[in-house]
């Protein structure tokens, strides 16, 4: 187990993430087989996602260094993660049966989840753009795009809201709280 744990420790987190996705996809189809699990499969996936992390942490504890002093005291860096993992396993069994209980509410349908996810992805782009076009312009574009995507058509509001937001963040964060937000490499000459 220690060797496996060592191998797991040296594994890139991208592989762990890929493993997570693969397990989730596999379980999604697996839970689709039985009617009892099919109606609550996303609830079960949430549970299994947490269990995946729990199992991973449990396996990784075998590679944690244990000092002599800690071993003598009976409390090592491995103790708490293992205790929580054990309790998590027990609680998960209880939660699993509670979820598949026919009286439990079935999974809520995904409505405009792609839209919500796209807004999330848009925010990542906006953050990446911080270093190039600066925080102010980047956040203004983000707000404008999301407002349009949500169906806002009032031109005055589309112009005013991002401008007011930029002014608010500039005065409150930059001037009052002295938190320097990036101006971006494209506009760095402005500060110089």
């Amino acid at each position, binding site marked *: 187990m220690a060797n496996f744990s060592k191998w797991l420790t040296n594994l890139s987190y991208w592989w762990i993430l890929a493993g997570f996705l693969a397990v989730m996809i596999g379980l999604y189809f697996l839970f689709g087989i039985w009617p009892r699990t099919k109606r609550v499969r996303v609830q079960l996936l949430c549970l299994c996602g947490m269990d995946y992390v729990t199992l991973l942490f449990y396996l990784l504890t075998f590679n944690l260094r244990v000092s002599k002093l800690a071993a003598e005291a009976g409390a090592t860096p491995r103790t*708490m993660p293992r205790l*929580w993992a054990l309790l998590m396993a027990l609680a998960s069994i209880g939660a699993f049966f509670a979820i598949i209980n026919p009286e439990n509410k079935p999974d809520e349908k995904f409505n405009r989840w792609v839209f919500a996810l796209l807004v*999330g992805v848009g925010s990542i782009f906006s953050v990446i753009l911080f270093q190039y076009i600066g925080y102010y312009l980047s956040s203004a574009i983000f707000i404008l795009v999301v407002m349009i995507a949500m169906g806002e058509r009032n031109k005055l509001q589309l112009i005013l809201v991002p401008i007011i937001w930029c002014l608010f963040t500039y005065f409150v964060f930059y001037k009052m709280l002295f938190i320097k937000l990036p101006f971006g490499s494209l506009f760095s000459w402005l500060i110089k």
Partner: protein
Amino acid sequence: MSEIFRNLGLGFGTIANVQSLIFIFIGMIVGILGGAIPGISPSMAVALLLPITYSLSPVVAMVMLMGIYIGANYGGSITAVAINTPGTPSATVTAFDGYPLLKKGRAGEAMGISLWASVFGGIIGAIILIFFSVPLSKAALKFWPSEYFALCIMGLTTVATLGGKHWQKALVTCLFGLLLNTMGLDPTFGIKRFTFGVTKLFDGFEMVPVLIGLFALGEVLNNLEHFDAKKKIEREKIDYKLPKPSYYWKLKGPIARAGLVGCLIGIFPGAGGTIASFLAYDVEKRVSKNPAEFGQGAPAGVAAAEASNSGSVGGAMVPLLTLGIPGSSTAAVLLSALMIHNLNPGPKLFTEQPALVYGLFASMFIANVFMLLVGTFGAKLWVRVGYIKKTILYPLIFAFAILGSYAIKKSMFDVGTCLVFGLIGWMFKKFDYPSSPLVLGLVLGKLIETNYVQTLMVTGPVGFIQRPLTVILFVISIAALAYPIIIAKVHAKKDAKKAAEPPTDDED
């Protein structure tokens, strides 16, 4: 007793300056605004504003956040009365009688009652907080690590089990939070755990991006998913003229009772304002001479709901300040705020930072007085807040959340953390996994681990059964875990019995 009054004087002295008063006022206004907008909970409002407090002194930062907490609890009632849409979950009960009162053309009365009940419920909560927490903090100073450990476990089990119908899910999320908390350097031995080679994880997750992600982004993503551009709130022209102050005297009984109930319920970790308001409403209905009036526009119903949820604020602060255990999700955010300002919540806070603790107590009175003034003169304005377009609100909350997580350390990693936890919060919200137990697990994990290891090192495993208080606390924890199971079984038996009974003629 004289010591309490002396220290309270010190507290008022600490915040009797323009800066503190301005920030209490700002906090309270932001809180009312946040509370009045459906979809923004008090915990979300406090989490979003947390980054603004970095450059402030701990006292000013905490009194401002306290102002938000108090303001948001009242703010929720405004839209509950005006558009039958509670701004916060705890204001749900306010809508039961508040909206029918509005429909009867007594909107001003409903708004006035909710304001005065909030103010006096909050003051009752603050008074109980002061007289409860001071002796409790003194007793807590004598606690052994084993007792602290048992206390934390008790806090977690009650939180998890008070998750209501979804207590199993609450328990899982709580344990998941505890497990995530083990990431980073081990607090006793300094060994790296589950960092995956990422140096930014050496201290574990930064709490603010986690909180903003779970409470703000998760909520907004969920709202975005259900957003319907065509849906519009109908505006009604209503007269919000508040009654004269003497009118509220007849509601002194319901306000006092509900404030007390709310505060006592608030003390229990996880109970919070929502449970408090339901319970206080029920109590008031039982003692009322006209119980049939409840739900049809009973002024006592509005008073009970509002006084209890405001009273619960004081209650939630008791375990937070005296033991370092948050009593509600907003209190968990406040706990993180204390930690960010290098303060250790717990009994030592009373001896090490009396100015801060008593300043916080004093700020609760001042925030409530401000609230009375602002609520009296701005009733019409606050109602309009509920009509803010979602097309403006959601992008702004999103931008604020990103900015808040970035501003802490100017780290993209923190923004990533916020987004990941936002995604988790969204899924949790959608599939009925409560987020608060996860936060409590994350916040309390280190405290539990430290006390657990200390107990083992000092006394060995026998330390957990050596002291009576430890055993009592463990027994309560087990009882708290067993309670929902027993209740569920009793209900299942009752339902089965009902189903087995032959249908009566009436039912036919």
